[in-house]
């Protein structure tokens, strides 16, 4: 269990303000946020590279705030691998055990084990400069894992890799987490990594953690305009909530599940909206009529804008788009469940 308690750190242009987080044992925890949000300093402060200006860090009940990095038993893996170029893969992976003055035969066995786990057992004699990016990152992960760390910190570990390597290494990370049960904190701005790997996600913005939750919670129920915008909720409206469980946005009254009175923000994910040329039965849903504006094809998805008194954005799969048989200018009906319309009080970008 890793607990970060009201931690602050100022480091030139980057800073952390009063960050609190707790990461459970064996949890795969992802930190998501734009560049400059303070994600890397957070990891480096947890690792013990910087000491915080204020606050505490507790690892498995022990206060490690003032413990030097070398005694924390926390592993670190960077986007750019940071393999020591003057050492072979074997010496890189064995580096930490050598620091602990372990027996050479023991080191060899552990290194082999760790390399096999990462499928780089055949590369031990090579130098990092001769390896592909994916192989280098495997070696860097093996180097951290061989120490059996209490927590493993990954700073955008897949960002420097090509798409194919990234996908295979992503699967590897899931497998390794499963196999070793290591607590992992992983920084990224790639949503696929979140859905594939994360037990829970924290969103960072401006040096603070603004929301923590399961991927589902973060993506469906953002607690602020920032999070909603960041996770790609394209239908974001300001409205006035009523006690009867509806929100007035423009001329529309939208039924919501967890309504609240007063000025609110309303978030609806574009893939949660149905679109049809024929009138849709209400069945408790929100149904509005409108007219299609633009239709843009984007990979396997089709993004459609619909003017229905207020502008909606709808995302369909290519197949869904063909079945709906619609085109720009068509009159259509939109439908979505009240549970798809997430409400949070407006005017609090850092969350309710």
């Amino acid at each position: 269990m890793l607990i970060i308690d009201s931690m602050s750190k100022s480091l030139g242009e980057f800073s952390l303000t009063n960050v609190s987080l707790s990461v459970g044992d064996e949890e795969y925890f992802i930190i998501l946020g734009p560049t400059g949000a303070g994600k890397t300093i957070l990891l480096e402060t947890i690792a013990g590279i910087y000491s915080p200006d204020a606050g505490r860090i507790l690892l498995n009940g022990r206060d490690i705030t003032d413990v030097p990095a070398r005694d924390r038993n926390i592993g670190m893996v960077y986007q750019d691998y940071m393999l020591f170029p003057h050492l072979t893969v074997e010496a890189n992976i064995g580096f930490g055990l050598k620091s602990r003055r372990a027996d050479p035969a023991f080191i060899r066995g552990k290194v082999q084990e760790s390399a096999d786990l990462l499928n780089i057992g055949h590369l031990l004699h090579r130098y990092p400069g001769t390896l592909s990016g994916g192989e280098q990152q495997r070696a860097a992960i093996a180097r951290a894992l061989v120490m059996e760390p209490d927590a493993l910190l990954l700073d955008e570990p897949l960002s420097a890799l090509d798409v194919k390597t990234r996908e295979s290494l992503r699967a590897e990370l899931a497998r390794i987490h499963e196999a070793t049960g290591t607590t992992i904190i992983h920084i990224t701005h790639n949503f696929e990594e979140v859905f594939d790997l994360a037990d829970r996600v924290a969103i960072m913005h401006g040096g603070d953690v603004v929301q923590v939750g399961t991927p589902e919670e973060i993506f469906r129920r953002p607690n602020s305009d920032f999070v909603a915008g960041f996770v790609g909720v394209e239908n974001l409206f300001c409205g006035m909530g009523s006690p009867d469980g509806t929100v007035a946005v423009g001329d529309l009254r939208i039924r919501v599940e967890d309504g609240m009175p007063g000025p609110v923000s309303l978030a609806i994910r574009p893939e949660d909206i149905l679109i049809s040329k024929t009138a849709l039965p209400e069945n408790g849903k929100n149904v509005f009529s409108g007219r299609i504006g633009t239709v843009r094809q984007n990979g396997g998805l089709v993004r459609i804008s619909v003017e229905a008194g207020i502008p909606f954005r709808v995302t369909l799969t290519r197949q869904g788009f063909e079945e709906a048989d619609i085109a720009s200018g068509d009159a259509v009906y939109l439908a979505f469940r009240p549970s798809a319309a997430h409400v949070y009080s407006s005017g609090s970008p850092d969350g309710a």
Partner: protein
Amino acid sequence: MSQRNSSRFRTATVVVALLIAAFIVLVLLGVVTHSPASVLIECLLSEEIQFAVRLSIITSVVSTLLCILVAVPVAYALARYTFPGKSLMNMVMDIPMALPPLVAGVGLLLFFGVSPVGKSLDAVGLTFVFTPLGIIVAQFFVNLPYMLRVTRSTFQGVNPRYEYVAKTLGCTDAQAFWRVTLPMSWNGLLAGSVITWSKGIGEFGAALMLAGATRMKTETLPLSLFLNMSTGKLEFAISAATILIMISIVSLYVFERYGGATHVY
């Protein structure tokens, strides 16, 4: 080169470059080829030139080692840490490089000759004035900034995250430096040492002031060149010059070869 003007401009600049390169080569060839080979070899084998070679090598090697010993920790502090007075310190340590060596020599002479520090060093047997020890100190003082600059830029070129990773793998600050940063800086340190050594072996002004020009006592290669030139023994002067030219060319080659690779990591 699609336009006539730019083509003419190109030709003009390249011609100037060629002329200068030819000028440099001619000047150096003029020295090396001035004496017949037999005379040159005879001089090179003479006791005086042998002495000068030996003294030059010993003093320059020792002063270079001292430069490395001092430059490594100082350059590391300047490259990695922030502390009050750092930029001022950076400037101060570059001063000897901009200073005419003769001025440095006068300063050293006063410091070691008449200052209380110099006198007490002299009292315990460390005499720098008019001794080979003075040559070492003069070379050290004048050349330290070169070693320092190359070393500092080498350390700056090593991403500090290598050290961060080393620390998470159980290293103290010092161990991270020894096991990671220093080996990764090898090329830069080699290049810096070679250029420092080469400048040390050619050091004249400051050494002349502090150590004097005593034949067969403080006679390094440049001092030998100076002494023999002023006493009209041209062949001896030229053989000293020839050795210095060779050393410069080889050093430059090594520096370019390894110095250029400093930022590979």
